[in-house]
């Protein structure tokens, strides 16, 4: 018997998005193949490039973020939090890195579970209390567990080829005197553009679903969804007020207006992360499930 249920709706939406991406990519490949082999060279070249990127991504991301791998004696606290979470979720211990910046953030990278790195900024360590930091680390560990690096690398592969073709298309067919190849190039440009735009939206959608899944995983691994809720609120700048109500309540407070945090529905299509409200709502739903 197990108290934790899985979110069938989220899994179905994720599967649908991945299915649509696959169909789109297969159609794109079919078009490319029907137009000749010159594009295959690009695909092979890109494939090798993506493979290298995937293989060395951990080092690349760490150095671009200015993250430094820390030892257990430097950060005993972090090590103990992560090792207990790993024991609980049955994961191998990842490397732990710290970025010196006041920006509160955390990320996970590495090509697979045994090459994973989980990094936090000094800003997030200062801002969050122990349980909140644990929740954030559990979120990152779930990314590792779900192989999100691999999933997203595969998902973006043909999309980046489409992007490159859009950028190269003017040079591929522009100088040709042959009318036939000129219209071929125009068609290629059009197809690549459509694939690029549609896949971009699908990839971002998939990314948001992976974030929801990582939030859910963090709630399950820590057993406490509310810790992640309060961590998310703190990171996004929201604070539970500490000032006494009687001090705040005055004629002056009428001058302030709470800013609307939610972006418009259209822009949300292009963001990698779901909105704060949507994430908190999903976590609160998990909390209700635990009581059922």
């Amino acid at each position, binding site marked *: *018997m197990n108290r934790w249920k899985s979110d069938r709706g989220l*899994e179905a939406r994720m599967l649908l998005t991945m299915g649509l991406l696959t169909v789109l990519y297969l159609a794109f490949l079919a078009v490319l193949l029907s137009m000749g082999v010159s594009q295959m060279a690009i695909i092979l070249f890109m494939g090798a490039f993506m493979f290298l990127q995937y293989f060395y991504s951990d080092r690349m991301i760490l150095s671009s973020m200015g993250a430094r791998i820390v030892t257990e004696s430097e950060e005993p606290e972090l090590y*103990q939090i992560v*090792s207990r979470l790993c024991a609980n*979720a049955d994961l191998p*211990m990842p490397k732990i890195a710290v970025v010196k910046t006041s920006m509160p953030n955390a990320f996970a990278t590495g090509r697979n579970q045994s090459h994973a790195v989980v990094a936090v900024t000094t800003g997030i360590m200062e801002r969050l209390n122990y349980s909140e930091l644990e929740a954030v680390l559990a979120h990152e560990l779930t990314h590792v567990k779900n192989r999100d690096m691999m999933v997203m690398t595969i998902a973006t592969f043909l999309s980046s080829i489409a992007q490159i073709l859009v950028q190269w298309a003017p040079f591929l067919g522009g100088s040709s005197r042959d009318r036939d190849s000129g219209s071929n190039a125009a068609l290629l440009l059009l197809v690549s553009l459509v694939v690029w735009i549609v896949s971009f939206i699908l990839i971002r959608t998939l990314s948001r679903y992976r974030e*929801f899944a990582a939030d*859910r995983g963090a709630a399950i691994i820590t*057993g*406490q969804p509310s810790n992640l809720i309060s961590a998310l609120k703190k990171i996004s700048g929201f604070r539970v007020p500490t000032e006494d109500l009687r001090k705040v309540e005055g004629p002056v407070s009428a001058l302030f207006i709470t800013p609307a945090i939610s972006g418009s529905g259209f822009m949300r299509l292009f963001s990698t992360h779901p909105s704060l409200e949507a994430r908190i709502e999903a976590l609160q739903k998990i909390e209700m499930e635990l009581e059922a």
Partner: protein
Amino acid sequence: MGFLDSILGKTKLPEAKTDKLFAISTAAVTLEASQGYKADGKAGVCIKPMESSRYDAARAEIEDLLKLSMKETGTQYKIEKDEYNYVWVVLSDPDFEDLVTNIQMISQVLMEQGFGTQLLAAVYRFRGEDVAYWIYSFKLGSYYPFVPASGRQRDTSREFRLKALMEKEMPIEKDESRWYPMWGMPL
């Protein structure tokens, strides 16, 4: 954890494995006879608490049963939170068998109530020249030694010796990268 589950972003905590938990009772005899490690009358269960009133109910049931067994066997217990917010049920009893039985009882109740996934480890303390712990991981279903030295260092050479000498007596975790230390245990 299947590959497909991870691709679909499904998080499943491993269910608690308790079938090898009892192996410590026979191993304790060998530990004392040939290694000079005596059971120290202390054991504990480490639980990841959950935000749910059902979990609180399960905890209350455990406490009732512990009170009963305290009358029968004289096992003392206390429940406390460690610095990492994990809950410990710490048992003290000079009779090693009573410790093992009570630990089995606690894990049984949690599993019956559907909180088996929240069981992290059972720990038995032994004393020889130094203090050595045997940690039972409910996730792995096996034991591993943990010998803390001063200043958050572990005496790994002693741990490996204990492993080599006890391997035939009890199920010891083969993958040493899973021998997670537990600092600041309340026992």
